[in-house]
């Protein structure tokens, strides 16, 4: 075993990588350095065109350096570019679509600041003369209110360049682990840190590892679960795309700790860029001697392979995931036996969520005590939340577990706009709604469960008055119904019935008879019954947690359900099929006011004759009913 005592760990692979090549924003530059943040979100927002225009701008002039980095995490700033010129610190600009490239470059290269709309912030450094009146990037509310441990240096690290990761002390934890610690020691450190799985189950990671380590079998597997198919959750993609080496480092430590010689990254096939970058990173890691045989002279071999998940939500569940890797339908199996005893090809297998894995290097670098400085109750460390919906800021943020909903709201939406917010849906298909009265609750695992919420993989969907609770519920139940694997009856049939009931109460009755009305009214009680049955009897978390959305909705927004059922009223005007407007021919004098006011041009007719509403066009806004002076517009 190589001795690390007097040397820095970086000497371990000094021959394989060219560290001096990594650009460092803290040092002065000669020629301009342009950082472009390329990731799935920014590609959609047009970063590739921006890059093209930057190249065009410099044309034949080769005195500049283009540096492709990952994302800062906030996708509503996309496309983001950073510029560092001679004597000045790195300064970031947001929403730089191609048409603004030349304006910004023209001014900055002449040491003049462009329009402030684009300016995000700078990273000042001693020896570099800061830009006047430009805020510090990390002092902006959006970053200062986070606790960025995993996301540290995101936006500066170049995902395709191992030197860049190592330059920010990457692979330090792994190098020191494999050269100085035994597997059992690593398991103990992780267990004591209190790290719990971020994939939804919240099981103590160290305990899981110990169990796998202590099984007698020699062949073991470590799987990083990067399937992430919850709608509204995109933190896993962010990690894999923008810092693939962090994921690999975490996996290497995990595999070492449980004595697995083979590890897999199970990632969704649609995550093209993430897969590309992971493949490249694995290639680089192999070249640097971080994977393969006899790593750093320790005699230990670890190989990592990517498995592209063919896309089924239920394959995020660990036993279903394993089934799909074995070439089967991805359906869950009853536990026990747990995968840590009987997993892939019958061998002990540890499955860990990608975010869990990314926490591991931090714990080994800074220790369990430092790790526990963040968190609440029994939930230690930080958690990534994917913020989306009716917010000012969309993206992934990292905050202490146990942060309150209100504090998260303060990060992603201005105080003035907060009163418009009606609800937050937390945790995706396994989570639930929360209303403003409850925004003070803390999001640690236990408090969340006490409040009928699951943190899931951390989706945080903000809803305002234009969103309907029933509609969002329908959206999630439809998702569950589509993705239910069909193996167990409570989930397969239960989700179907729930969807039917929700459809029935959000549409007008198909027939006006007593039976139909009774069915609508019975809806609420049936929803509750079926939900509790599904919770108790479903085989896996998919069916067990699916009713959370319904139950939390019924608990906190019962009034909205009742409005739909009794008054056929959808406050948000989303459930437009609840009613049908029609003209009472006998009352209509043909004044034409309604036709003029109708925003959808849905009313036709000639003057002084009864008018007519074209149902296909009608958006059920009710303007015609309000404007008619002759009671000629009615609802059915």
């Amino acid at each position, binding site marked *: 075993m190589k001795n690390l005592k007097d040397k820095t760990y970086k000497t371990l692979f000094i021959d394989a990588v060219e560290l001096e090549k990594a650009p460092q924003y803290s040092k002065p530059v000669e020629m301009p350095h342009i950082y472009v943040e390329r990731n799935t979100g920014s590609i959609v927002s047009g970063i590739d065109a921006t890059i093209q225009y930057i190249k065009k701008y410099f044309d034949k002039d080769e005195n500049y350096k283009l540096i492709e980095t990952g994302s800062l995490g906030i996708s509503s700033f996309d496309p983001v570019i950073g510029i560092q010129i001679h004597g000045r610190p790195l300064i970031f600009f947001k929403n730089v679509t191609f048409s603004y490239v030349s304006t910004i470059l023209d001014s900055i290269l002449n040491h003049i600041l462009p329009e402030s709309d684009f300016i995000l912030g700078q990273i000042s450094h001693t020896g570099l003369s800061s830009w006047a009146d430009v805020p510090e990037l990390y002092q902006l509310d959006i970053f200062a209110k986070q606790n960025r441990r995993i996301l540290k240096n995101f936006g500066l690290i170049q995902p395709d360049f191992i030197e860049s990761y190592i330059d920010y002390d990457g692979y330090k934890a792994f190098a020191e682990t494999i050269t100085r610690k035994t597997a059992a020691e690593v398991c103990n450190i992780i267990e004591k840190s209190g790290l719990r799985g971020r994939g939804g189950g919240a099981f103590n990671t160290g305990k899981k590892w110990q169990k796998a380590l202590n099984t007698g079998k020699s062949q073991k597997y470590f799987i990083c679960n990067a399937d992430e198919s919850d709608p509204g959750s995109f933190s896993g993609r962010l990690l894999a795309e923008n810092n693939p080496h962090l994921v690999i480092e975490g996996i290497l430590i995990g595999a070492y700790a449980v004595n697995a010689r083979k590890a897999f990254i199970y990632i969704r096939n649609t995550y093209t860029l993430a897969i590309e970058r992971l493949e490249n990173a694995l290639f680089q890691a192999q070249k640097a001697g971080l994977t393969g045989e006899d790593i750093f002279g320790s005699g230990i071999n670890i190989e990592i392979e990517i498995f592209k998940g063919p896309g089924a939500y239920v394959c995020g569940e660990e036993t279903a995931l394993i089934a799909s890797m074995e070439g089967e339908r991805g359906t869950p199996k009853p536990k026990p036996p747990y995968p840590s005893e009987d997993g892939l090809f019958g061998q002990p297998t540890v499955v860990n969520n990608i975010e869990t894995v990314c926490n591991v290097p931090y714990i080994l670098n800074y220790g369990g005590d430092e790790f526990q400085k963040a968190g609440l109750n029994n939930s230690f460390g930080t958690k990534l939340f994917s913020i*989306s919906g009716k917010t000012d800021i969309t993206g992934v943020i990292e905050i202490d577990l146990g942060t309150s909903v209100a504090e998260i709201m303060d990060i992603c939406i201005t105080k003035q706009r907060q009163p418009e917010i009606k609800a937050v849906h937390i945790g995706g298909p396994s989570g639930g709604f929360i209303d403003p009265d409850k925004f003070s609750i803390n999001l640690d695992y236990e408090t969340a469960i006490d409040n009928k919420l699951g943190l899931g993989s951390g989706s945080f969907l903000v809803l305002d008055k234009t969103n309907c609770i029933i509609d969002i519920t329908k959206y999630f139940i439809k998702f569950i119904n589509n993705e239910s694997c069909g193996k167990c009856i409570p989930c397969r049939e239960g989700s179907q019935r729930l969807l039917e009931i929700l459809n029935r109460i959000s549409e007008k009755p198909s027939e006006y008879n007593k039976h139909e009305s009774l069915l609508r009214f019975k809806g609420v009680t049936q929803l509750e019954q079926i939900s509790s049955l599904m919770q108790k009897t479903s085989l896996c978390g998919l069916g067990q947690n699916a009713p959370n959305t319904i139950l939390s909705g019924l608990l906190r927004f019962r009034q909205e359900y009742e409005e739909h059922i009794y008054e056929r009223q959808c406050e948000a005007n989303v459930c437009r099929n609840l009613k049908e407007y029609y003209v009472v021919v006998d009352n209509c004098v043909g004044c034409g006011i309604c036709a003029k006011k109708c925003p959808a041009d849905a009313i036709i007719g000639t003057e002084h004759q009864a008018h007519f509403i074209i149902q296909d066009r009608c958006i059920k806004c009710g303007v015609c009913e309000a404007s008619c002076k002759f009671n000629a517009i009615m609802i059915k």
Partner: protein
Amino acid sequence: MEKYISKLPDKVYKHELLSYLQEFQDMFGYIDLSFIEVLSKNSGIPSGKIFGITSFYNQFRFKPKGKFHIQVCEGSSCHVNAEIGLIEDIKKLIKADEKDTSNDGLYSLEIIPCMGACSQGPVISINGKFHTKVSKEDIKKIFSDLNL
């Protein structure tokens, strides 16, 4: 396609099935039933079972892609920001359902759980070109501008 199929090894293991299917679809855009027959022969697993496994997963489609392959994001952020009935409008316009191809072979539709651009929703992509924050009006224009 025949050339590819003929190169398949004589012995295919069960845990390799999905990788072969993925590779096939990456190359040809869909799963041809003849390929399932060959996989069945080489692996000794009944073709009905392989078809069952294949159809279980969202990734695989059984019809060739259209001239315009349309991907629509159905993530929760796109859902709450979209006009009501946006996806239905698209289906009507192109006369194709999810994982389906229109009869004239022009359009095929794929619904994606999340395209990773949640600040830009609703997002659709046509042959890889993205359209962001699309309204029902935009959809009409985008499709009428397509070079059929």
